[in-house]
């Protein structure tokens, strides 16, 4: 795949370039700030971009805003956003626009090389990916009150996987259930939480995210 990297820390930028190179991807450009990122993506039109949220000059959310802008410009522009910390607010902003071809990962996830690369490929393929840690924190934040408490442990597990952006078949593979059972669980979950049923995996993530964060 052709990839653009936006990361202000030289060490990490270097590391990512090496990592991706070793796995057969081509880094067309590696930039240090949001403006260069915008220019690079517009010029090279990569298959996917990896963007650090915090970049100069203010080191708050430059990367995030650039990502949202680029996706608004060209729907389907695949961007995987990196963050050192879990910021559920950022996740919501990112997913609020066009669903699909977008991901939000913690930087720690890079340590699990295969997980990271899978997430990258999924985003490039048009899926929505949310870091499991983000999902876990969201679960923890809502507490045990409300309809969430009515879900069975199995249903909570599947809800978590849905929130990560997995498709039904992926969930089935991970939980060793049949596709039919997964579908039944999903319907049951949506029913219990009062969410409108949604076939589209990408829309599901946003719905679940909104629900968990409310």
């Amino acid at each position, binding site marked *: 795949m052709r990839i653009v990297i936006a990361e202000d820390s030289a*060490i*990490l930028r270097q590391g990512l370039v090496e990592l991706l190179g070793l796995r057969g991807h081509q880094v067309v450009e590696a930039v240090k700030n949001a403006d260069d990122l915008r220019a690079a993506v517009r010029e090279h039109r990569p298959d996917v971009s990896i963007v650090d949220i915090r970049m100069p000059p203010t080191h708050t959310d430059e990367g995030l805003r650039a990502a949202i802008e680029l996706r608004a410009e060209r729907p389907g522009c695949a961007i995987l956003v990196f963050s*050192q910390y879990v910021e559920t607010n950022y996740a919501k902003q990112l997913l609020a626009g066009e669903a699909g071809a977008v991901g939000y990962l913690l930087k*720690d996830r890079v*340590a699990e*090389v295969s997980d990271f690369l899978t997430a990258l490929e999924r985003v490039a393929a048009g899926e929505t990916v949310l870091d499991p840690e983000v999902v876990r924190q969201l679960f923890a934040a809502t507490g045990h009150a409300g309809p969430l408490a009515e879900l069975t442990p199995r249903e909570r597990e599947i809800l978590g996987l849905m929130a990560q952006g997995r498709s039904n078949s992926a969930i089935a593979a991970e939980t060793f259930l049949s596709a039919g059972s997964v579908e039944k669980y999903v319907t049951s979950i949506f029913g219990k939480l009062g969410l409108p049923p949604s076939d589209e995996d990408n829309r599901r993530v946003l719905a679940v995210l909104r629900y968990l964060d409310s």
Partner: protein
Amino acid sequence: MNPAFPRALWPASGRQTLGEALWIVVTGLLAPVAVVLLLAGTVLGLALTPVLLGFLVLVGMLRVARGFGGVHRRLAGRLLGLPLPPPGPAGLEPGLWNWLVARLGDRMAWRSVAYLLLRLPLGLIMLFASGALGFFGLASFSYPITWLMRGPYHHGLPVYNIDSQSWAGSLVWCAGGALVLLVWPAFVHVFTWADRLLLRALVVDPQLRERVRFLEETRATALDDAAEQLRRIERDLHDGAQAQLVAMAMKLGLAKEELAAGEIDLDQVRALVDAAHANAKQALVELRDLARGIHPAALDKGLSTALSTLASSAGFAATVSVELSRRPPPSLETIVYFAAAELMTNASKHGAGRCAVLVDDREETLQLTVIDHGAGGAEIVPGGGLAGIAERLRPADGELTVSSPRGGPTVVAAVLPLPG
């Protein structure tokens, strides 16, 4: 503490109006009493001056004045909602003469006298004006009713020439009265604004006010400093140690995958592990530097050890001499340490390279002196390094002095008061 002109001419609430009205009444009545007492005391005291008794009477008068000032201050707190700090006690020293001088020269007492004298005319005017206005308002407002109660030939009220031949006319008076009553709270509010000004000017100890302003400023500086420092630590951690560790985790992750593969490329693995090792060592360096920037471990052993360690590890050619009769509190040690560090850096950059660092305590102050024989010409420029050091000394009531003639030597001294 400059009072702004009442932003709204209107008082804040009904309660405030009540408080202000009560204030006008009470102080209006109190003013003549106070002034009479003061005058009597002064006359008596002056008359008896050849005898010691005269002085005592004068002192008594001043204390009474101070007391009245205190009463007004407390009343202002309750009724006007204006909390004012009490003045400090008159600084008394032993000895009859000193006592007399202190008591008679008590600035706060004389300020109270001035306040009471000024208040007398002001208070009486306020009392009568607001009373008259209020009474007029009430009388006019209730005129339609009283008109009906008066006989057929005398419709006029004995006050304010309120008179009308017809009942309809009385309604006009009523409207006017209503208007006056509506405006009355604002009237009272504006009056008390003048009073608040007077109170703030005269009843508050100016030294206290100065001190409070100084403390507010330096506290703001200290808080900003602390916040800035925390931000810097977070950034250093994020960009330094954290980045190294993530890179290290990446490389080890790759190495793991490689080792789990069918055909292991050992050269690849070696390169990855080497690189990960380098990341780990660099992370340690970053963390150590950061820790030293927050609180150097050597400081726990005292300024002497800390400064010598700093000089040798940073490569400053500095002679450190610390002579302290007792250990200063840790907060002062930290301030002196970081100030010395910055001054030593300056000396090594602009000075002749060598410098002497002296720390000693005498007369209840902690003194840091840094001397170098460089080119001189250093001065405290706003926004410069020396100004920054001076700023950081201020919250501890410290001062920085610089003597740096062209050609040297440059002597920078930081003086901090020691508590207790």
